[in-house]
């Protein structure tokens, strides 16, 4: 029946072309949107797993407990009346036994690197403008194993933080704003008002304006001095061998500790949720396009079935069975689905290559993305286009197969 199916398609070139175009656009939209979102998601996930720790251990923040206060302050009283009931957060949370964690990690083969981190804030003033810096103090040699910060250094070297005290690494955007270069001195004001001078030993650029303006790195000791918190640790950053196992490992560690243990995906669950929304949007947009294309196939084949009633009658009288009639119309739908799908795949591939690297703009203006090539996306697109074509052609085909020659002849089909 393929011979006759192709003859039917060629006999109505315009209609076939329009339907083909619908399938082609649907397939291309699916692949391009998938590729675009995929590139964005890959970049974001790369930022999460390469630009940050796989697992973060932080002190659990505790709230002031009225009963605990009463037990400590008024142990001899049964009923205590308060003018204002004690509430709020306790003072800055620190990990009580960071050394214990680091010792534990030495025995865990899946842990590739771990460092104690002290996070604090510093302010730089320049020509009347204040820049608030989120400072990460850690062991530099471990920090470069945990994150890809070393590859983002554009001037100086991250490990120069180990050469004595008072070194700082700032972002390119901040360096530009302050008109500072490597080896220049900047003065940071601590939260308690002290002014501490630092020498710029490195400048990083990761493509994110906010990060380049508001983040800085230094050694753990320097950060602790800045925060006036000698020996204190606010976080332990861990890198493991397979970032996909991070959440299960974090759950295991959480079960045996009072500290808060969270994996990269748990920390970014909101963002990952957004990816699901993006995927939904992608399926909806493609779904609508494919639905329209499917209706196109359905309408055209329905019309063809009506136009070809006499052909069906004569084919049946020649011994063609109902299965042959189904085949005749399904082959037409599948042919459109396959050719439209393949053309969509090919064009998407060529267009993706032609576009090459692109920038997201906005805060990620420095990030160069490339439309993702994923074999399964192409396969999925082909399956969807052919699935839609099959479904859209099945109903008219089935209706056609049910027509008996005598019904058509009696109804006087011309």
């Amino acid at each position: 029946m393929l011979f006759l199916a192709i003859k039917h398609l060629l006999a109505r070139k315009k209609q076939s072309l329009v339907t083909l175009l619908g399938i082609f656009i649907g397939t291309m939209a699916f692949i391009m949107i998938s590729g675009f979102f995929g590139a964005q998601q890959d970049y974001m996930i790369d930022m999460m797993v390469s630009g940050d720790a796989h697992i973060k251990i932080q002190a659990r923040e505790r709230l002031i407990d009225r009963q605990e206060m009463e037990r400590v302050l008024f142990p001899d009283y049964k009923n205590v009346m308060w003018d204002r009931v004690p509430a709020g957060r306790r003072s800055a949370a620190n990990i009580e036994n960071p050394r214990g964690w680091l010792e534990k990690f030495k025995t865990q083969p899946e842990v590739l690197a771990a460092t104690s981190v002290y996070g604090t804030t510093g302010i730089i003033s320049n020509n009347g403008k204040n820049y608030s810096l989120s400072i990460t103090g850690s062991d530099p040699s471990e920090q470069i194993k945990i994150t890809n910060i070393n590859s983002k250094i554009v001037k100086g070297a991250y490990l120069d933080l180990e050469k004595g005290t008072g070194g700082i690494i700032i972002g390119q955007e901040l360096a530009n704003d302050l008109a500072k270069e490597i080896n220049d001195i900047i003065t940071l004001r601590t939260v308690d008002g002290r002014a501490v001078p630092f020498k710029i030993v490195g400048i990083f650029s990761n493509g994110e304006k906010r990060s380049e303006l508001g983040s800085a790195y230094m050694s753990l000791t320097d950060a602790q001095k800045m925060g006036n918190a000698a020996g204190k640790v606010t976080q332990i950053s861990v890198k493991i061998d397979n970032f996909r196992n991070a959440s299960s490992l974090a759950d295991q560690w959480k079960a045996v500790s009072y500290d808060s243990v969270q994996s990269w995906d748990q920390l970014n669950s909101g963002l990952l949720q957004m990816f699901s929304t993006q995927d939904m949007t992608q399926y909806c947009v493609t779904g609508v396009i494919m639905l329209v294309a499917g209706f196109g196939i359905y309408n055209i084949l329905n019309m063809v079935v009506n136009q070809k009633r006499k052909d069906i009658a004569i084919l049946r009288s020649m011994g063609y069975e109902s299965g042959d009639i189904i085949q005749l119309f399904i082959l037409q739908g599948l042919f459109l689905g396959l050719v439209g799908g393949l053309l969509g795949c090919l064009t998407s591939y060529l267009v993706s290559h032609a576009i090459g690297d692109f920038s997201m703009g906005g805060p990620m203006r420095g990030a160069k993305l490339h439309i993702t090539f994923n074999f399964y996306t192409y396969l999925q697109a082909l399956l969807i286009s052919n699935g839609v074509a099959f479904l859209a052609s099945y109903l008219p085909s089935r209706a056609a197969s049910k027509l008996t020659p005598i019904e058509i002849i009696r109804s006087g089909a011309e």
Partner: protein
Amino acid sequence: MAALRVENLEKELGSQKTKILKGLSFSVEEGEFVSLVGKSGSGKSTLLYILSTLDWPTRGQVLFWDKDITKMSSQELHSLRNQHIGFVFQFHYLLSELSAMDNVLMPARKAGLYEQKKEFAEHVLESVGLKDRMNHKPGELSGGQCQRVAIARSLIMQPKFIFADEPTGSLDSANSAMVFDIFQKINKEMKTTIVMVTHDPDLAQATDRQILLSDGQLVT
């Protein structure tokens, strides 16, 4: 043994179960050229469609070489239509996308004999006077030429039977005569059994036997 035998054939149509055919019994011998004649509404076309397995009797039997079509499986019926029966309708019912040659070869395609039947298709088209038109599509042929292509199509599988429903009904007298001559030639040279519905008394007279129907019953 009769090639085709009809016994107590009845056909009812519609929700009112209007009797179109009322207990017909007759037989057709192998190689016979029979015409079915009668007034409009006498049931001759309905009878032809039942004989040619396109329609189903309400009661009674239609036997091809003593095999009842009402007891045949769907597969056997399709095979019977494809291998042993040729149809010619009042309208040619050619597939407009295909050339005369491809139209003629459609039954052979179904039987998987496309390549083997190509030469014979040329011969058949030549015998109906269309050798130089075999690559033309129906839209490029006259009504008479199309009907001759339809006859060639009915012959491609060298069937034992040809059923024709007013094959000359839509043609002028010259073309009618030409088509009828072809039927006579087929009947004589190929020994094909032909059952033809016609309104033309002259054509009916030229066949071996006339079966006259009136109000669903046999008159002769």
